């Protein structure tokens, strides 16, 4: 289920004194099974762009084609499209609206026209995928969940619709380290085992470096960079200029390089950094 964006423009509050161009000539193709990170400063258009992927925004200028169907087409089946392209919002409070976990997760499948055992099956399956125990959490009050559990319930609610593409909009903001690691584990597993396309919007460079295979960098509504994670993080200076940063391991690697050691470019994970630095220490400084 590929997504294709051609010449997409978008203005916020069009026709008012607060009118602002949010997206400017976006061209982008996302293929099946990709894990793609979208990064950029606040108000660079990340969320607006992603909400075009599941037709929460319909282009007025430019085209968004999901699985061959133009979202602006009057006959397009947007409800099915939104089930295929799941969207998890930053704040789970907006997304969870049934009183209990089970009922909330069943909400999507019910809208799909499913009933009875099929719904129960979907709920159980989705809860297993995000690691919420069926027996313990099915009847649990939404408001009695912790921050991390709420986010997992929100993801389960989307997974129950069997999406082929999952958009995650800054879902780890405000989570403690353990909650964050648990969520990241769930996402990694979904991508690996079910080959779901993941579109991961985040303010954390560390997370994006760790997870994404490809990164799109937005800057004031334009695509500044689009490439593999390694490529993107080799543009350190441009990223700083946009208001972004390097993942912390890369900052350390850079400082180590300044000492005169030779390291491979764009080290993305801690394991890579440990291996590279120990190899470099064994080899000793590069004579200049």
């Amino acid at each position, binding site marked *: 289920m590929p997504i294709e964006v051609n010449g997409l423009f978008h203005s*916020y*509050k*069009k*026709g*008012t*004194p607060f009118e602002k161009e949010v997206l400017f000539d976006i061209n982008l193709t996302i293929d099946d099974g990709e894990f793609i990170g979208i990064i950029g400063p606040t108000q660079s258009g990340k969320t607006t762009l992603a*909400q075009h992927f*599941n037709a*929460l*925004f319909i282009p007025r200028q430019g085209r968004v084609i999901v699985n061959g169907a133009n979202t602006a087409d009057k006959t397009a089946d*947007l*409800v099915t499209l*939104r*089930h295929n392209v*799941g*969207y998890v*919002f930053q*704040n789970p*409070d*907006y*997304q*969870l*609206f049934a009183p209990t976990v089970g009922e909330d997760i069943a*909400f*999507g499948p019910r*809208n*799909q026209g499913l009933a009875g055992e099929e719904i129960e099956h979907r709920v159980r399956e989705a809860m297993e995928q995000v690691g919420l125990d069926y027996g313990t959490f099915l009847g649990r009050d939404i408001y009695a969940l912790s921050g991390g559990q709420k986010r997992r319930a929100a993801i389960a*609610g*989307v997974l129950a*619709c069997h999406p082929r593409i999952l958009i995650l909009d800054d879902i780890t903001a405000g989570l403690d380290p353990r909650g964050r690691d648990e969520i990241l584990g769930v996402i990694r597993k979904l991508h690996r085992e079910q080959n779901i396309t993941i579109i991961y919007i985040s303010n954390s460079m560390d997370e994006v470096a760790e997870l994404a295979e490809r990164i799109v960098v937005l800057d004031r509504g334009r695509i500044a960079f689009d490439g593999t994670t390694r490529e993107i993080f080799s543009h350190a200076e441009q990223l700083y200029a946009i208001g972004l940063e390097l993942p912390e391991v890369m900052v350390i690697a850079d400082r180590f390089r300044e000492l005169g050691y030779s390291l491979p470019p764009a080290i993305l994970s801690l394991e890579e950094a440990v291996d590279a630095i120990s190899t470099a220490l064994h080899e000793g400084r590069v004579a200049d």
Partner: protein
Amino acid sequence: MELTKNITLGIYLPGETFVHRLDPRTKIIASVILIVLLLFIRSYEAYGIFLIFTAAVIFISGIPPGFALCGLKPMLPVLVLMWIFQLFLYRTPGSDVIFSWWIFSATDTGLHMGNLITLRVLFLFTVTTILTLTTSMVSLTDGLENLLKPLRKIGLPSQELVMTMVIALRFVLILAEELDKIVKAQMARGVAFDRGNFLQKTKKIFPVFLPLFINAFKRAEELIIAMESRSYTGGKGRTKMKTLHLGRVDLAAGLLIFLFSALIVFIIVSIQPQI
């Protein structure tokens, strides 16, 4: 989907025009005078003059006319409903039936009343919108508090009332933002807000209200906690960074309002039909 786009009430549009520079008290009193006048106007001639006046104010204050009008959009269904009610239900002895349908019949006085009330609401809304678009929250608060000060003597907590009102106004936009997010979250999970007939659409709206109010209350509570922790304890003992003073512009504005009111009063008294 962009619900916040049509919200104009409670939004401040920064500027340096004649209208912006007026003392907030001048603007508040002028608005009150205009609103009182509106309650008495019953002729299309007076509304015509009123229209010219408000259009001129909008022009001078640099508010894009389209923007001033777009705030009316969300109110349209209510206005239409009101107009229909008046059309069919209001009648005086001796009024002529224009047309009838089933058990309802519309009269000419009903039509006239419907028109007048609709115009009145439209203008009421426009006057308050101009006031809030050209006056920042804080100067609006200052002005109101200052004007209501005498009422403290009879035990009315004027400053607290004003603060409550100002925050309520701020929440118009917050509620719209919240609604926008929740509707989107529901659409993302398969609720087709954009499909079905009126009844089906209304039914779909209901599940939105619970999270809307929970989130709005949460935000209100956070705002109150933040205000409290910045030593806000109501109006007592508060001072102001900017002291209010009336200037030459206020004199000019006062004069204009006086002349305008005189004209409207003249029309009301001499030309307007007495119903």
